[in-house]
């Protein structure tokens, strides 16, 4: 069983080829294709005997090796190709790929030898996770939010005057406003957020601004009990995420009223 696992350390056909080249102490720039092809195929057989799934890419490489081997058997410049230069070696492309792969394999080892965080060195603690909210609070469902929004809209006087002035309230402005409030007091009741709001459009824009901020996890909407008061509070990394979003929003603001 352990053999099965350990053989899987061949990260792919290039890795297996590099291993065979090293094992046979061959020069990477002058690979004896016949020998390598034979050993490569023998290894694939072995993998199959051990009932390991040989991935498709291993088979593609097998075909490539056999193709190169057959090309090597042809006399140079006599294989019918017009566009092939003098000194063309069918192995060139493979050698280039092997070297390129080896380069990044070494780079990966270099990374692994650095002081890796949470393996070699540690910081005071991980940043607080979103899940670890205050005890007893629960996330509010979107249905509860919509119900709360409806209550606010219903509170508006029914026989309102016809609005003639064009209001200039954008979602972005409301987002910035809400963030400012939360920076100052950390949390606000859903109802209070709409206290000073007088028009239907402004309620909707405020609501959309709040949803945008929830979406990017700048704020959280919680309540202590079912049907209890809904609270909006700053998330752990409010300023970090909010800054980008508000800037992004500046580009286009489809909800501008």
């Amino acid at each position, binding site marked *: 069983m352990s053999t099965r696992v350990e053989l899987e350390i061949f990260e792919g056909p290039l890795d297996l080829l590099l*291993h065979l080249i090293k094992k046979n102490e061959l020069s990477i720039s002058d690979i004896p294709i016949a020998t390598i092809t034979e050993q490569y195929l023998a290894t694939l057989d072995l993998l199959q005997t051990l009932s390991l799934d040989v*991935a498709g890419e291993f088979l593609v490489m097998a075909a490539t090796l056999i193709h190169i081997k057959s090309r090597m058997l042809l006399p140079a410049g006599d294989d019918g190709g017009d566009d092939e230069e003098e000194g063309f070696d069918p192995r060139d492309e493979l050698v280039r790929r092997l070297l390129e792969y080896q380069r990044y*394999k070494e780079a*990966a080892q270099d990374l692994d030898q650095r002081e890796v965080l949470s393996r070699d060195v540690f910081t005071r603690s991980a940043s607080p996770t979103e899940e670890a909210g205050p005890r007893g609070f629960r996330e509010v469902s979107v249905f509860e939010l919509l119900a709360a929004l409806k209550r606010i809209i219903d509170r508006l006087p029914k026989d309102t005057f016809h609005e003639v002035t064009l209001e200039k309230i954008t979602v972005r402005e409301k987002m910035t406003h809400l963030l400012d409030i939360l920076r100052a007091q950390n949390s606000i009741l859903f109802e209070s957020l709409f206290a000073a709001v007088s028009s239907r459009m402004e309620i909707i824009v405020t609501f959309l601004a709040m949803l945008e901020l929830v979406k990017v996890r700048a704020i959280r909407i919680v309540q202590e009990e079912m049907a209890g008061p809904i609270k909006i509070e700053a998330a752990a990394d409010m300023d970090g995420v909010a800054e980008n979003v508000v800037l992004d929003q500046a580009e286009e603001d489809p909800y501008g009223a």
Partner: protein
Amino acid sequence: MEREEVKSILESLLFVADGPLTVQRFAEVVDGIDKETIHILLQELQSDLEAPSRGLQLVEVAGGYQLRTAKINGEWVKKLLGGRPARMGRATLETLAIIAYRQPITKAEIEAIRGVDVDGVITTLLERTLIRAVARKDVPGRPFLYGTTAEFLQLFNLKDLTDLPTLKDTDEISLPEISRDVIPLEQAEES
């Protein structure tokens, strides 16, 4: 404010910070102190902590400064924290290295270098926020181009991308080393 006083404040800020703090951020908090002075004081703090009796180090990472435990004490810290951090597999490390050096890069370009499918690895790296999609390449299919994140810099203790070790040229590459965990094929056949 006295110099030593400011230095003490900087140390306190470093202690409570959740991530690397930039000199800019220090300057905003400790008003009236210019960035140059902050920089010098941080360097001093850094060398103060190099004393063998100290268990912390001040590292410059991901564009800021962060307090980390001394590497030599790693085993003890691990014992306290319990659990074993998931070791990053070779497939993950190699893919990450390719993205780090070649960014922005598409999945197909990574696969061309590694010679294997990298779907699963990309998903893992995205979940761990070590990479992110930075743009789309203007070729048919408009595939995502991936790049590394600040978390990547933090994980490998890098100041910025220029702090990555220089990639070897292909003509400098020696014969590959057999990695220690490779069992020779003969042995595999016996078992």
